[in-house]
């Protein structure tokens, strides 16, 4: 019985191909207007329904906070100054707030815990090489990452999240769009740029809000110019040590904040310049569509923001940094303790790179640190510190090869860097190179996942690296010509 019914159905059955053929032949006649008329009919129904169900009780407009605020934040005269002011305030709070806890953490983890660990290891009779690798290499690298990174992140992320929740970011995109348009890019790139300040990988994923492929690629390639959280500590530390220290202590915080803002602004300028360059060369085309919804302002929930930004961002990023610090710590210790001839591997490498580093106004230690830190930018400063100690061991500063020594406050960094032959030029070029160099391995992987193209991944990786080398090179030469052999 069932079979018979099936057979009858089978005979009259229309096949999949028939459906597709019918659709295809109908399509030649329908022309190009289908989408339009479809949406028109949907909106027609929508209007009818909403007319029936929505009534506005009171037509009298109340005082509109949103509009007043918008007028202030987007006006020709106040829009950009307010943007800069907010940026400076955020960095100033971060820098001046992070100093003390950073020093406290460092002295606790390095001065107190580290000797205890060494004693415990000695008590159990751990072999010297294992003790060195685990405690002097891996543990110390972790301790450095935590003490350098945790305080600025714990302050910066919640502040940034508050701005985000309030609804300020779309206004920034709104204000900056005319510049992006001139650069042949999409205004929403401002949003992805802002996300990049948290983490470039997150910023690269966020480029999905940009519909057109060309503009999206521009946003992906230039996202690297948004200083990510891994690079903020480098900027903040170097600015405080070298630039903040040139003025009286009371102004130090503000001046260092201004220097960091200047680097961040340079990043934005580079974003525009590179976008402009890309849209005139390998990504030729005019700026296309732009539409952006400006949502109403919402009072941010402060407690929840603190919680989510601590859990989601700070801890997450810190965890990642620690994971990458572990192998880096091991590499640093090994390179300082495995000897070839009368020098360690690390010294060979650093000495080899030194001439090129000096040509760029940097030095061999910094370049080697950037190679070790490809997995994560977070560990650049700890690596530089450890490598500097390692190189200087011959001159008797510090305890031993690849081992961190006691630190009380920022003063010691200054002495350390001075001993390593650092000048103001080195500091400025380190800040520049930290802004403009290859993305970290996570970001590179994300770029590959998002673009699915080796070509674009390679361009995103090497374009900033080449630019960084060029910028440092020119700054160094010009500095040396006009200011002296720094």
């Amino acid at each position, binding site marked *: 019985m069932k079979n018979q019914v099936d057979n009858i159905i089978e005979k009259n059955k229309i096949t999949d191909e028939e459906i597709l053929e019918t659709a295809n032949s109908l399509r030649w006649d329908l022309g190009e207007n289908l989408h*339009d008329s479809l949406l028109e009919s949907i909106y027609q129904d929508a209007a009818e329904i909403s007319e029936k169900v929505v009534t506005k009780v009171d037509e009298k407009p109340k005082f509109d906070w949103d509009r007043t605020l918008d007028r202030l934040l987007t006006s020709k005269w106040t829009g950009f100054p307010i943007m800069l002011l907010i940026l400076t305030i955020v960095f100033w709070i971060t820098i001046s707030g992070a100093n003390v806890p950073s020093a406290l953490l460092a002295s606790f983890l390095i001065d107190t815990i580290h000797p205890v660990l060494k004693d415990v290891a000695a008590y159990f009779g751990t072999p010297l090489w294992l003790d060195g690798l685990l405690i002097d290499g891996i543990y110390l690298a972790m301790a450095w990452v935590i003490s350098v990174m945790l305080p600025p992140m714990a302050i910066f992320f919640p502040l940034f999240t508050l701005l985000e929740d309030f609804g300020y970011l779309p206004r920034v995109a709104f204000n900056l769009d005319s510049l992006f*348009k001139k650069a042949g890019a999409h205004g929403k790139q401002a949003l992805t740029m802002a996300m990049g300040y948290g983490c470039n990988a997150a910023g690269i994923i966020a480029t999905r809000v940009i519909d057109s492929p060309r503009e999206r690629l521009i946003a992906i390639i230039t996202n690297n110019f948004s200083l990510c959280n891994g690079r903020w500590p480098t900027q903040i530390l170097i600015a405080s040590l070298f630039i903040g220290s040139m003025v009286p202590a009371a102004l130090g915080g503000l001046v260092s904040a201004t220097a960091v803002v200047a680097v961040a602004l340079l990043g934005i300028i580079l974003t525009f310049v590179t976008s402009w360059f890309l849209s005139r060369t390998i990504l030729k085309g005019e700026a296309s*569509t*732009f539409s952006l*919804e400006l949502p109403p302002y919402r009072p941010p929930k402060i407690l929840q923001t603190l919680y989510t930004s601590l859990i989601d961002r700070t801890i997450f990023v810190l965890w990642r940094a620690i994971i990458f610090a572990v192998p880096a710590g091991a590499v640093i210790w090994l390179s300082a303790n495995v000897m070839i001839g009368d020098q360690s591997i690390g010294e060979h490498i650093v000495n080899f790179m030194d001439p090129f580093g000096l040509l760029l106004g940097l030095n061999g230690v910094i370049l080697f640190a950037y190679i070790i830190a490809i997995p994560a930018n977070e560990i650049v400063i700890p690596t530089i510190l450890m490598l500097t100690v390692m190189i200087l061991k011959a001159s008797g500063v510090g305890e031993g090869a690849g081992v961190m020594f006691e630190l009380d406050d920022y003063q010691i960094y200054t002495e350390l860097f001075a001993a390593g032959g650092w000048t103001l030029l080195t500091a400025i070029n380190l800040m520049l190179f930290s802004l403009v160099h290859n993305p970290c391995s996570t970001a590179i992987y994300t770029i590959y996942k998002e673009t699915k193209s080796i070509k674009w991944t390679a361009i995103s990786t090497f374009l900033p690296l080449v630019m960084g080398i060029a910028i440092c090179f020119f700054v160094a030469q010009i500095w040396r010509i006009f200011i002296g052999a720094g």
Partner: protein
Amino acid sequence: MIDPVMALLTAGAVCLGAFLMFWPEKGLIARLRWSKDTGKRVLMEDALKHIYNCEEENVTCTFHSLAGALLKEPNQITPIITRLESLGLLTISGQGFQLTSEGKNYALRILRVHRLWERYLAEETGVPETAWHEQAEIKEHIFTEEDANRISRQLGYPRYDPHGDPIPTASGDLPPHRGRLLNNFSEGDIVQVIHIEDEPSDVYAEIIERGIYLGIQIEISKKLKNSIHILVAGKVQTLPVLLSGNITVQPAPEEQKIEEPLQSLSSLKTGEEAEVAGISRACRGAQRRRLMDLGVVPGTVVSMVMTSAGGDPKAYNIRGAMIALREDQAGFIHIQPLKKVN
């Protein structure tokens, strides 16, 4: 320490060298890549296309017309034709040539890539209209069949290119010709543009310049010997026959009425309100869909709320949400004064 001045000079020399190497199209690398073989294949494919077009228009192709189309001397054409014949793509008879069915398929494949790419440029990129044809002329020789299928899929298997030419399907299907040239209609007729010929490019640019797009309605007000007077979007224009001969139209559907002179959304000042009358036909693809998704359809009431600090994008209140649009985009949206209710 290396002398900084020396270092700068050396770096400058290296930059110059790199520039000469990598300069797109004119650099050393670009020249090396465009080898002689590619040039020969491009000529052969262009010849096929020209012969196909001749057959479509029922004119006979000669060595001379082909030489003209390929910008070569007639004697340079002979080897190309012999090669095509030996490949079995065409047959020579007397003065003219005929494509074999294989040759026709080959030509259709090239046309398919060309038109698909034009559609892609129109829909997915901001490449200016006048550059579409030129870029497609290059792409048609580079893309493989798979590339074409991928683009076609990505665009939702489009049927027509942005000039109104049908795109051959993967199996080489084409619909019958539609419409007639604008010159063939008489005074008083109301017609709709369905195709604008994109060659020669300066004529095409001139037509676009005059605001004539696919789908727009034209009323023929007067026919003279060398020109036609037409009414487009509320404005009277004089079209030389040279231009109108490149425009294909069909009688306008009855349900639509002729378009009135309209203002565009970008002319709205802060605080002013208006009703959307439609989106210009020149706004296509993703851009058009996006605007409609945001609620820009005929009848929607919009008001201008504020201008950004940079001056360009302006924020409009569209169906309850504040939407920022760039000036050129807002220019695509036609508006009319609000109809008085009550």
